[in-house]
């Protein structure tokens, strides 16, 4: 280890890129193609293996109930991808899951277990619906109103979750528990307004805000029944992948995630990085809330609390917190949800079957975390380039 040999730690290393290399040691780890490939193969093989094991356990579960696993997985495929209708249904359901997966993945890369996406989604959706009221009654043009609503949702969601990152840095408050508490507070805030000041008198049975109206709703991607939230999710996933792997910001964040103390010693602005990552996460979840309101429900009400935030955690773990990998994983979970109705009708099984499958996948997947580094084939040859 060289101490002091590194260039004098600048106050804001983010402004220049070169200092970042100082994090490595005297004999830098050269990531050769072979090493990269092995790490990549491990990150694909273990989650895929976990999926296979989950499918096997679920099949045994089905056999015990006297149902055919073959039928189940065939129907899952058919209901998820079999027809153009089912593909569209799957992709439609994947949109909020992508955004909520990103909301877990970005803080995870900086080492934070932030589980409050549900709250940011609810608050983001609610604030989009709330700001729509003056916009719609004031007759603001649609082209202007829609981005205002989306930005408002992202800003509110981002600010909400940024509090979590700030509390973690400034006061050492555990981010998992604080984000969980703030989810409940967020739902209470929405309920307070939706059942009080902002309640639409017309919504008798299910208190809701004023409907934003058909003109202000987000449309569908031409030629499909899929709303634009899917495109937003894909674009954000790619953008965040670039941000986390190709920029100094992303590098600094991942260094902090690897070892926060080392990052501090290098003079990285750990606090600001944490706040930025949690703000990005909250903005993703808030945007998911915007699309839930502006593309699906047309108003904010209790339907926003649908558990997307919690499924997003599972998706992010399966994708190893990699923004691009979240896309296929979210589509897979969209298919599990989309095929639920078909399986329910054809196999006479309750809709909770999908929940059981998800639960098994989640448990097996997290158990498989213990396997990383255990298989010789994924490691470098002993002593080759390790420091």
């Amino acid at each position: 280890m060289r101490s002091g040999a590194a260039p004098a730690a600048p106050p804001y290393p983010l402004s220049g890129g070169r200092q970042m290399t100082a994090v490595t040691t005297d004999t830098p780890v050269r990531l050769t193609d072979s090493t990269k490939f092995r790490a990549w193969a491990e990150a694909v093989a273990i989650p895929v293996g976990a999926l296979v094991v989950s499918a096997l356990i679920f099949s045994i579960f089905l056999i015990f109930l006297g149902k055919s696993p073959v039928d189940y997985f065939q129907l899952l495929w058919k209901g998820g991808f079999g027809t153009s209708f089912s593909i569209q249904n799957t992709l439609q359901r994947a949109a909020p899951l992508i955004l909520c997966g990103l909301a877990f993945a970005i803080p995870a890369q900086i080492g934070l277990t932030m589980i409050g996406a549900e709250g940011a989604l609810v608050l983001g959706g609610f604030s989009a619906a709330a700001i729509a009221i003056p916009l719609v009654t004031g007759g603001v043009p649609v082209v202007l109103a829609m981005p205002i609503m989306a930005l408002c949702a992202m800003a509110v969601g981002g600010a909400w979750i940024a509090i979590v990152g700030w509390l973690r840095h400034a006061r050492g408050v555990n981010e998992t528990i604080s984000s969980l508490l703030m989810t409940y507070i967020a739902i209470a805030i929405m309920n307070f307004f939706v059942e009080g000041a902002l309640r639409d008198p017309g919504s008798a049975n299910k208190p809701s805000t004023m409907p934003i109206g058909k003109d202000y709703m987000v449309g569908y991607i031409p030629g499909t029944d899929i709303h634009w939230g899917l495109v937003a999710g894909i674009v954000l996933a790619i953008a965040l992948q670039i941000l986390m792997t190709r920029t100094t910001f992303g590098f600094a964040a991942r260094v902090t995630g690897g070892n926060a103390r080392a990052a501090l010693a290098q003079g990285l602005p750990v606090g600001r990085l944490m706040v930025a990552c949690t703000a990005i996460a909250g903005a993703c979840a808030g945007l998911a809330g915007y699309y839930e309101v502006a593309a699906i429900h047309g108003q904010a009400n209790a339907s926003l609390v649908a558990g997307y935030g919690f499924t997003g955690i599972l998706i992010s773990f399966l994708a190893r917190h990699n923004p691009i990998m979240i896309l296929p994983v979210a589509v897979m979970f969209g298919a599990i949800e989309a095929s639920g109705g078909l399986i329910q009708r054809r196999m006479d099984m309750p809709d909770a079957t999908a929940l059981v499958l998800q639960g098994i996948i989640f448990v097996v997947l997290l158990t498989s975390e213990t396997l990383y580094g255990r298989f010789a084939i994924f490691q470098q040859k002993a002593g080759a380039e390790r420091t």
Partner: protein
Amino acid sequence: MNDGILATILISMLGGAIRVSTPFMFVALGETLTEKSGRINLGLEGNLVLGAMVAYAVSYHTGNPWIGVIAAGFAGVFLGSMHGIICSLPRVNDIAVGIAMMSFGTGIAFFFGKPYIQPSAPRLESLPLGNWSESSSLRQALDINPLFFVGIVVAIVMWWALANSRWGLIVRMTGDSEPAARAMGVQPYQVRIAATAAGGFLAGVGGAFLSLSYPGSWNEGLSSGQGLMAVALVIFARWNPLRCIIAALLFGAAGAIGPALQSVGISQGYYFFNAAPYILTLFIMIASARSSSSAREAPGELSITK
């Protein structure tokens, strides 16, 4: 006149607090035991929901609700020991596994619980302790379920045992310092698996209260996140079983403010009271995160306080 309204609100809040607090108390006690051993189980929501379903189903089939309560406890042991064993593997994140156990537990509860939504099962009879009173609202408030008293007894026993018994010492030592426990010849993982399983039992019993007493039937919207809040309750109670009773009553009372205000005709603006315990817990965390007294109270091996 104002005194009458205030009394009505207070009595119905007291009744509501006692009614609602029992599941809070059981999950808080279960979580306290688990966290005292140095591990955090975020999945007690799964234990609670599965416990509620199993208790209702067993009570329906056997006709005896108390057998249902015991069965719910063992459903909780099943999930708790699963959590304990998985978390004993190296490099497995106990918080994430807790979330996984929550979705697994609720999943199997909803799956196997479908046939029990319709039928009506025998419920736990409550003890009419308010018969001496003239006031019907007071009588209603003092109509207390025996599980409430079971919870208080468990809290007192746990408080005494943690402080005075050999088992309590082993649990606390494992929670405070793993090296110390190893030096004493204690296997930390075994202690933690046992503590998580026992904590799971208590959370399962808390679930039995939901389906067999109040609200008193099985359906999928039964739990309103009481299990998830166990972690907050334990922080609120500073890892002390006796304070868990107070924390549970307080969380229960905060939830009962809405209906209490409704009974006197105020039907708006009480949602912030529902969120009050969460806000309060958050402030306690902010205030105590770096204080030395909280470092004494919180188990040293706990991942959330490290």
